[in-house]
């Protein structure tokens, strides 16, 4: 067993941290308040190889391993959680399924620009009536000769306002339930494709979350990803990977909050002493550091399990569940340590506190993670 990062990993982490500190962090507060989608960040991330971290170089990616991917998402999220999720979705939920299920032609045409950061991808699964239960989705795909015709609506689509391409899940036969679900590669300019306006949210405010609508949208059959009826499996596999990204995002947010709380506790004086001299504050810091380390280890373990080529559904769900709930607790304590100042926008911790909240919800709520974990523990152990 070896739990130390390699020299290459540390170099990568330091490189991404510098990029995040110098380029991403300076804009984080502003885009949180304006909601402006950070497209320039995505372009720069692409040039650094962060948009297709685990995609082989022949398809425009950086050809790195899954632990590297965790480091990238953690470091970017430490500076800006919005930027972290935009990267995570492009990497995990769009590039990964294209790599795993795409034909050679699809990889050349669609994966390569996404992995290289020339194009931005989004993942369109959730619908107004299909959140935790995606098998209930109602977007339809009707076969018409060598084309498919898509109709339906998607909601809460990260990067939806700015994406160049959507991976869309629709059913070819609602009667077949999840076995009818099929995945499609849909460029944003396709006639019949439209997206809504930027929606203000509690956190990760600039991630371009919006609705997508498909109205008699026609696609060549060659833009179907995988087989008919294979979409549900493709979506679930993508979410396994996505959960590693969200776990890493949660770790990054919590790390930022922890660092600022630690520094603040050593500056702020009350009762003639630094806050860090009080046991109550020391205990908060100790718990925060411990839980952060535990979450990071679970995240790396899930990434390692993915690298082994085995099914890693359990590890990813555990990492996502623990890391997201940890981030909620750690950002909450960081805000508490900052007191009234922490509640103002003068400090970053209120943003971390808001941003952390979504990690318990998207890509499978904590409740869904527990269902997944319980299934493994009860039925598959």
């Amino acid at each position: 067993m070896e739990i130390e990062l390699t020299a290459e990993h540390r170099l990568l982490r330091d490189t991404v941290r510098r990029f995040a500190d110098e380029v991403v962090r300076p804009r984080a507060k502003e885009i949180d308040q304006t909601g402006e989608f950070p497209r320039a960040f995505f372009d720069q991330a692409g040039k650094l190889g962060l948009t297709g971290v685990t995609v082989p170089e022949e398809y425009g990616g950086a050809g790195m391993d899954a632990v590297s991917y965790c480091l990238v998402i953690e470091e970017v999220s430490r500076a800006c959680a919005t930027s972290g999720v935009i990267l995570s979705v492009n990497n995990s939920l769009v590039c990964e399924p294209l790599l795993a299920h795409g034909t050679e032609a699809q990889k050349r045409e669609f994966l390569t620009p996404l992995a290289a950061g020339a194009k931005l991808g989004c993942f369109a699964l959730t619908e107004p009536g299909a959140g935790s239960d995606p098998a209930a989705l109602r977007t339809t795909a009707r076969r018409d000769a060598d084309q498919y015709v898509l109709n339906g609506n998607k909601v809460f689509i990260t990067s939806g306002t700015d994406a160049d391409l959507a991976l869309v899940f629709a059913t070819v036969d609602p009667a077949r339930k999840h076995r009818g679900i099929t995945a499609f590669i849909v460029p944003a300019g396709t006639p019949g494709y439209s997206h809504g306006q930027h929606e203000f949210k509690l956190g990760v405010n600039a991630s371009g979350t919006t609705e997508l609508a498909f109205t008699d949208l026609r696609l060549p059959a060659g833009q179907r990803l995988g087989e008919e009826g294979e979409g549900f499996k493709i979506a679930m596999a993508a979410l396994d990977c996505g959960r590693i990204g969200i776990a890493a995002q949660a770790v990054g947010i919590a790390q930022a909050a922890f660092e600022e709380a630690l520094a603040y506790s050593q500056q702020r004086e009350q009762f003639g002493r630094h806050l860090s001299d009080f046991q109550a504050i020391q205990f908060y810091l100790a718990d925060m550091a411990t839980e952060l380390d535990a979450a990071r280890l679970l995240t790396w373990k899930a990434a390692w399990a993915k690298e082994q080529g085995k099914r890693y559904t359990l590890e990813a769900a555990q990492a996502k569940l623990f890391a997201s709930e940890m981030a909620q607790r750690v950002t909450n304590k960081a805000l508490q340590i900052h007191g009234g100042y922490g509640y103002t926008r003068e400090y970053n911790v209120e943003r971390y506190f808001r941003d952390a909240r979504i990690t318990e919800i998207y890509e499978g709520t904590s409740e869904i993670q527990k269902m997944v974990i319980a299934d493994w523990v009860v039925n598959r152990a």
Partner: protein
Amino acid sequence: MAELSPRTAQPPELRQAAAAAAELTPVAAAGRAGVERQAGSGIDFSLSGEQELLREQVRRFAEERIRPGVQERDRTHRFPQEIVAEMAELGLLGMMVPEEYGGSGADVLTYAIAVEELARVCPATAVTMSVTNSVCCWPIVRFGAARLKQRVLPELTRGALGAFGLTEPGSGSDPGSLRTTARRERSSWVLDGEKAWITNAGFARWYVVFARTDPRGGKRGLSAFVVPADAPGLAIGQPEEKLGVKASRTAALYFNGCRIPDENLLGAFGQGLQIAFATLDHSRVGIAAQAVGIHQRALELAVAYARDRVQFGVPIAQHQAIQWKLAEMATELAAARLLAYRAAIAATEGGGEERSELAGAAGEAEEAAGAAGAAATHPGSRRRGDPGRLAAEAKLFASEAANRACYASLQIHGGNGFHDDHEISRLYRDVRVTTIYEGTSEVQRLVIARHLLAG
């Protein structure tokens, strides 16, 4: 694996990446070379073949030799000397002692796995074993002079038990305030005082004992000694009645003009507190592993019961309320195990070594953490002082999580679990001590905070 990974086949272009990283501003100008083509992951969460084998062997031993009679020993508080003898035969006592002294020369992770597997069946037996290994053998190996080691260690590895005498009635979390004294008399040391809650008391052959050698106090006012069970003036108290780990022996030690030879001084004169802290930094990994073993069993019992027990017409495992508890237990178990194993690896890599040097300079080991600020929370960063923090984190998290797990498991068992004869009832009592001994959870938090704030 037969498959060749194209990633690992590529040579790492480290130099190029390092150069790019060095001139990263503006980062876009550095181009993709800054991060691409990293070599494969050095991170590996799998155990070695030897470690897997040891786990199997200890599990089989625990199931076949310790499980029979475990409930009865809990009820009668009988100390299982026959099991101690078998553990010695298997090499489980003195696991980390170098082979030249008759030990197994195992690394700390291997030791932790053994503790975990023993605790999964009987936490009382596990603590009997871990105390001998980590708070008696370890400081002797680490700080003992050659002659002392040659005399003491071969006995300990052959089945003589060890113990650790630090705590006193008035000195628990604050060992610097202890009052047992040791004074020099010709070529002997003479000890006077009382030690409390000593695991293995009365069954141990050797006791590592801490006493005040400088009445003016101060950080160098304590020294450590190795005291044989038959030393004149040493008496053992009555066995304590405890909430749990009842088949382990806990009793007081009374030193009444207890005379030991000069050479039984462990380490240097005045080094006692440092030895105590270094030992606890190390031994906490064992208690974390003990908690992991209990947690593992609590989950197994809960899953088995929930599959079997039918209420409202279905196995209760089908109710989400029960599923939630199982999922939380399993997730915290995974986290606790990773923290424990990482702390074990860090301890193997010479934590005690660095800590003792630091402590020698700074006086008090727990204040001598070298970790600097937030960066220290990255497990990837190797820093002096890290092993102590990692052990404290592991012990804190694993013991608290195991307590939650036993609570939840007993709740899943309902009235059946509340019955004295049920295994979960015993584990529920046994697990409680893991947040107390070898440093309470509160002391762990102090240790962690001191590391964090040392930067």
